[in-house]
Each structure stands twice: as structure tokens, then as C-alpha cells.
């Protein structure tokens, strides 16, 4: 599966999951086979620089990246509506490294 983690700073699997969803600057995308990490890369979150509709732009990026689950500390109403609509699972977690957040998948 492919999971995404909203982060403030890119430190690979040590990146700390951000408390925010739409405005977090970066997204760490991890490819998993079972519990094994097969690939990891970081992309920019277009929502971070958006004037409005940040959460929707973030969700669109996740859709375009083919992500099935996303982790962040909090999800606003727009984020929840959009994530449900496109069928991406939410993982509510923050302040922990990606490597640890992976375990809640």
C-alpha cells in the first residue's frame, strides 16, 4: 500500500508528523509491502501555499500520488469531506516520527 505523512521538515522516516493537514509544507510518501518499507520520497504540499481551499489541494495531491492513507494531527471539515469522497483513510497522529506512525497503519 501507499501511505502519506504530512510533515513540517523532511528527514525521511525520521520526519515528524505535523499537527496540521492542509497547510503542512511537505508530504512523505511511503510504499509498503506488508510492514516492509519498499520506497520513500518527499513531495511538496500545494495546499501549503494556497490562498484558500488548502485541504482540497492537499487531498488532490494525495489522489494524484495514488495514496490510500494519510497521517496528520488534525483534519478540518473540508479535509474530512474530501478524503471520504475520494476514499483515502485518515490516520490521526502527530508529534511522532514517520517510522513510528507507520505502525498505526
Amino acid at each position, binding site marked *: 500500500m501507499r501511505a502519506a505523512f504530512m510533515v513540517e521538515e523532511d528527514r525521511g522516516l525520521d520526519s515528524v508528523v505535523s499537527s496540521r493537514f492542509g497547510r503542512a509544507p511537505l508530504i512523505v510518501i511511503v510504499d509498503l509491502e506488508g510492514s516492509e518499507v519498499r520506497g520513500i520520497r518527499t513531495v511538496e504540499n500545494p*495546499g501549503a501555499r494556497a490562498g484558500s481551499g*488548502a485541504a*482540497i489541494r492537499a487531498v*488532490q495531491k494525495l489522489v494524484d500520488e495514488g495514496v490510500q492513507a494519510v497521517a496528520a494531527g488534525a483534519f478540518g471539515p473540508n479535509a474530512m469531506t474530501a478524503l471520504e469522497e475520494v*476514499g483515502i483513510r485518515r490516520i490521526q497522529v502527530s508529534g511522532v516520527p514517520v517510522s513510528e506512525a507507520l505502525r498505526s497503519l
Partner: protein
Amino acid sequence: MIVSVSGGKGGTGKSTVAVNLAALLSRGRRLVLADLDVEDPNDHILLGVGLEREEPVNVMLPFVDYRRCTKCGVCGKVCDTGAMLISPQGVPFLIPRLCSGCRACYFACPEGAIVEGGRTIAYTYLTDVSLDGAEFELVTGSLREGEEHTPPAVLAAKERALSLDADVHLIDTSAGTGNSVATAVDGSDLLIAVTEPTPLGLHDLGLILRVAEELGIESWVVINRAGLGPEDGHVRLAEERGARVAARIPYSREVVESYVGGSPIVLSRPGSEAARALAGLAAMVEEVMG
């Protein structure tokens, strides 16, 4: 003549100056006061009148004709507010609250699959005000709860006000210097920037004077709550920007009392220092009007 009252910072006395100027300038003249602070219109409260003759402000709301949609995703790419989400299957999905009604998706869709709908985002009102020899019309814009886009509401209320025949159109804006303020003041002959002798008042005065400059509007500075703190920075800034300091309204208990009493101070306490300062300002505007 179109005169705007603005100021950048919130709570500097924009509405107080606007309603008092309206009371003074409407003597012997046709005047329309436009309250374009659509997120929190309150001139009617300061004037003690209600909101009448409601008209809806409708904006376009796109609907997707899924029989025509080829899932190309163009509507999502052109959407400037992030209101159009494209699902993993390529199906567009609209989040109405984020839509500003700009029609970009409507024009961009190559299949004609975007259908024009509409929704009401705000209301405008028109109230006849009659106070102690001051008679004028008040147009108010009021955004509906939960709506995010103020400019269409500001524009609709402004158009309703300008459609009324008058010698003076007086515009009261919201705080800030963003789209909704620029939309409100654009086309004015004069911008009265109400500030106060505080660091934040000074900072925001700089911003609103720049907005006026960008839009090519002559600006005057009114220092409200004068006496509260140093004003040299404000005076210097006004000079730099070519704006004249047109009035200083002293910080006084009488101003607060008229505010509590719900009547413009120029009517309730015409002899007060603050009322005299406002009368001086009105006289200057009258001079410009000729």
C-alpha cells in the same frame, strides 16, 4: 462624488466617522451611505435603524452533468479556490462552500458539462434614515453565515448604492487592506483613512495609504482618539504619502457616551469637541465638492 472611509486597522472609528459624516453631509444634499463591511455591517446599529428592502446576492454555482463529463480533470486544474476536487476515478466533485462563483470551470470545460446553477451568498438592504434633520439612504451588504467570499457581496452592495441617484456616495469599508477593501474603495474620489495614535494604527495606516496610492485615490488622514499617544509618526507618514491630516478627533468620554446612546455625536452633542472636529472634516469635504 464618492468618498470612502477606511483605515486598515479594526476598531479605529471608521463607522463612527462614516455615520457622523453622513449626518452632516446629507443636510441639503442627497446622500447614500453604503455599509460595505459585509462580514459585520453595523452602521444601522450606530444609526438606530433597521435593515429593510432585502435583496439576495446570488453567485454562480457549478453543477457537473456527469453524462457529458469525460473525466478530463480540466475543471479541477482551473479552479482557483480549490473547490473542485477530482476523485481517483477522475470524477469532479464540488465543495460548494469554497466556490467563489468565478465560472472558470464553466468556461474551461471542453464538453459543456458544467451546468450553471446559483446560490445566495449575501443580502443587500436599503433603509431610509431620518434623524434630526439628517435624511439619507443607507445601503447595507451582509454576508450569509458560513460564507467565505466577501468581494461579490461587497460589489453587489456597492452597485446597489451607486445605482441610487445622489450628490454624495459615502462608503464605509471593513477593516484590513485585502480584496474586499480594495473592491469597496476602488473608483472613489477621496479616501478618508481613520487611524488612532497607537503603533498598530500607524502600521495599518501605512498599508491603507498604499492601497489608495495603488488605486490612484487621493487620501486624507483622520486621527481618532487623539491624545491617546504620540502622533508624530502618523503625521510624518501622511506627509510622505502626500495625504493631509484632515482632522483630529479627541479621545473623550462624550464620544463613548454617544456611542452607548446609539446616536451620532454630531446630532446628540453638537457642541462637543469631537463633534466640532467632525464638522470641520465635513466642511473640508464640502469644500472639495464645491
